[in-house]
């Protein structure tokens, strides 16, 4: 059988050193810092005051507007501070700090729902919204929005994303082995909510145990199929996954729902299952703490808001001199300047690279070898666009499809001249957004 995949992409060393380590429950931290902006869209508004006592699962941040997400307390204890705190994805933003009372008490509203299969799709959407679930693959897009496609879009397929194509990360891999029943329940709930009949589970072929376990689990499900995919980055990107599994192409500037597909990460499916069946909001997630700079790499289940430092300490601290601390994988992850940032809903991993692994790169001029063009999964010309960005010709950059770029980083990864292609593209995108007021429309005159 032909292995399904997409055009372009790269296969960096996998480095999945934690793939056989079971998920460990991390002991409760003394305090958590829960950022109110952990998702794509508007930040939540705090609904607690300093001094309030909160219980696990209690709402502490109310979603603002249609694209936003609810935030819950992940510890029982006292709210000690509501102020700006450093954020792993950008400038400091508002956060609620809760000090643990050590009792680990759940809010009384959290209870199991044994009748969950009788729920109306709209009730499920409401539960998902209230549970503050966002895409757990890293992008953190509010899930209830994805589950509510516009009336005029016909959705016929759900794809469960178990690719985990970034090197090092293994949290989804472990979940697919340890929480397989819950994940499949979550998938069923998603399928029911969207009233679709065909479900695919895409898993890269380097996770053979997960493919086997998943096939075993769904052997009696007529409308579900496991699709083994080529191990290639960025296989786990929505549009590339849809292309690989269904051979449908999401149009430029469009969304998966434009081709009738909704993609959900396996971790998100688990969270949906927990919320719908057990009433649990999203207060914890699995984080892969890994890299050569970590003494004992591990897959940890941690409360949202736990500081990176606590996770690193639990894993035995640093080994050697840390050079880079990254939230996420090495290709798209965000570099951190401190370990005092909290885990957010989109934290897939904490990767610590050794000082020796971080090589300072001297840039040379482009020799037009076009490797970036060959590997680009969205068929744009990174070399040319980067040149335009450097010349501040953002209008040309847009004409050549800069807005199709998802910043997967394969171009910069392969560039023999070590040109910071992603950096230049990001810069041009920001400038474009500024010039057009966020619509990304043409008619920009540069600068």
């Amino acid at each position, binding site marked *: 059988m032909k292995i399904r995949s997409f055009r372009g992409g790269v296969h960096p060393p996998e480095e999945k050193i934690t793939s056989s380590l079971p998920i460990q429950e991390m002991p409760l931290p003394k305090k958590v810092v829960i950022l109110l902006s952990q998702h794509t869209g508007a930040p939540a508004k705090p609904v607690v005051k300093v001094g309030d006592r909160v219980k696990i699962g209690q709402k502490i941040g109310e979603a603002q507007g249609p694209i936003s997400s609810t935030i819950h307390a992940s510890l029982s204890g006292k709210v000690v501070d509501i102020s700006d705190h450093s954020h792993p994805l950008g400038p400091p933003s508002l956060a609620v700090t809760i000090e643990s009372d050590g009792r680990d008490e759940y809010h009384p509203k959290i209870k199991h729902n044994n009748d969950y299969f009788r729920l109306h799709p709209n009730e499920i959407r409401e539960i998902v919204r209230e549970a503050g679930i966002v895409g757990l693959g890293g992008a953190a897009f509010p899930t209830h929005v994805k589950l509510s496609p516009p009336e005029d879009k016909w959705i016929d397929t759900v794809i469960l994303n178990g690719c985990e194509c970034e090197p090092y990360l293994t949290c989804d891999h472990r979940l697919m082995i340890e929480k397989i029943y819950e994940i499949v329940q979550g998938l069923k709930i998603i399928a029911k909510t969207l009233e679709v009949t065909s479900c695919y589970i895409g898993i890269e072929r380097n996770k053979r145990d997960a493919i086997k376990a998943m096939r075993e689990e769904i052997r009696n499900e007529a409308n579900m199929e496991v699709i083994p995919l080529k191990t290639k980055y960025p296989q786990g990107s929505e549009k590339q996954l849809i292309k690989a599994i269904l051979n449908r192409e999401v*149009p430029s500037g469009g969304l998966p729902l434009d081709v009738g597909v909704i993609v959900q990460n396996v971790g998100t499916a688990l969270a949906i299952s927990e919320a719908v069946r057990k009433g649990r909001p999203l207060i914890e997630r699995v984080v892969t703490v890994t890299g050569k700079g970590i003494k004992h790499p591990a897959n940890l289940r941690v409360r949202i808001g736990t500081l990176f430092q606590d996770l690193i300490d639990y894993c035995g601290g640093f080994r050697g001199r840390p050079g880079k601390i990254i939230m996420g994988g090495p290709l798209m992850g965000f570099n951190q300047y*401190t370990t005092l940032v909290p885990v957010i809903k989109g934290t897939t991993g904490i990767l610590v690279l050794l000082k020796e692994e971080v090589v300072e*790169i001297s840039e*040379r001029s482009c020799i037009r070898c076009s490797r970036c063009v060959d590997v680009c999964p969205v068929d744009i010309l990174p070399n040319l666009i980067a040149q335009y960005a450097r010349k501040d010709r953002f209008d040309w950059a847009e004409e050549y499809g800069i807005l199709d770029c998802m910043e997967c980083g394969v171009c910069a990864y392969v560039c023999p001249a070590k040109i*910071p292609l*992603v950096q230049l593209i990001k810069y041009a995108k920001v400038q474009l957004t500024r010039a057009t007021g966020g619509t990304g*429309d043409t008619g920009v005159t540069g600068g």
Partner: protein
Amino acid sequence: MSQKLVVSVSPHIRIKGNIPRMMWDVVIALVPATIASVYFFGFKAIYIILVTTFSALITEAIIQKLCKKPVTIFDGSAVVTGILLAFNLPPGIPLWMAGAGGAIAISIGKQAFGGLGHNIFNPALVARTILLISFPVAMTAWSPPRFISFDALTYATPLTALKENSILTPLKDLFLGNVGGCIGETSALALIIGALYLLLRKHITWHIPFTFIATAGILCWLFGGAELFRGPFLFHVLAGGLLLGALFMATDPVTSPTSRSGRMIFGIGCGAITALIRLKGGPPEGVSFSILLMNAFAPLIDRFIRPRKKARVKRGK
């Protein structure tokens, strides 16, 4: 945290390869042909290669010093230019001429445009062409290889022999390189070995060499004989500078188009012009002119051949 952390934009890992490694890989790929040139033309060949290479290196260093740019002669690119130029020179060339060629290649062919990555034309071919026009006699001073096996017109290249005397050189001699010609172009075997190495290391793709050689070969097969479809296909593929040009000169990334389909158009163009010059033109060989001409078209090809555009969703406005 007392230690300082590095902060940068993703991606946080990069491939190990870089431009100097690529260039030195090309140098490695040229070793078999270098050995063949010494084998067939004696030590004169190695002198020519050394002279052009050093002249290229020194010229690059001087110009970069004068322009107050970082001196990058160890990135291997000038070495590649030097060797390729030497490969395009006849064994009988005076050494001072070869040295001048190296200086021309780097100064006019490369640095005048801004250095590595900015030149429009292949620097080695620029120098060869200037030498050919300036010293037509010395540049066609063919001397026979050491083991010449047939006695017809020993001083000519196979293509001259064909054009002027209608003599077909045996294919075995062409394949091994036991014929007259520029020092690096004669041994098809050595060139193919080197090119396979580059393909394996993914420094070149098949697009340009295949289309170039196939187009030239097929056109010569079609129109190169007494009647249609009677041309000597394999002879034209192996003779002259076609393999050297298609495998090592036209594949220069700087002066060829970026897209795969663009590269194929480029190769077809090179092949067609080569066949045209070989069959209808004045000079017996046209590989270098064809590459230079297509170099000029590369930006234009890039302009029109874009990656397939996806359907666009109308944005709300």
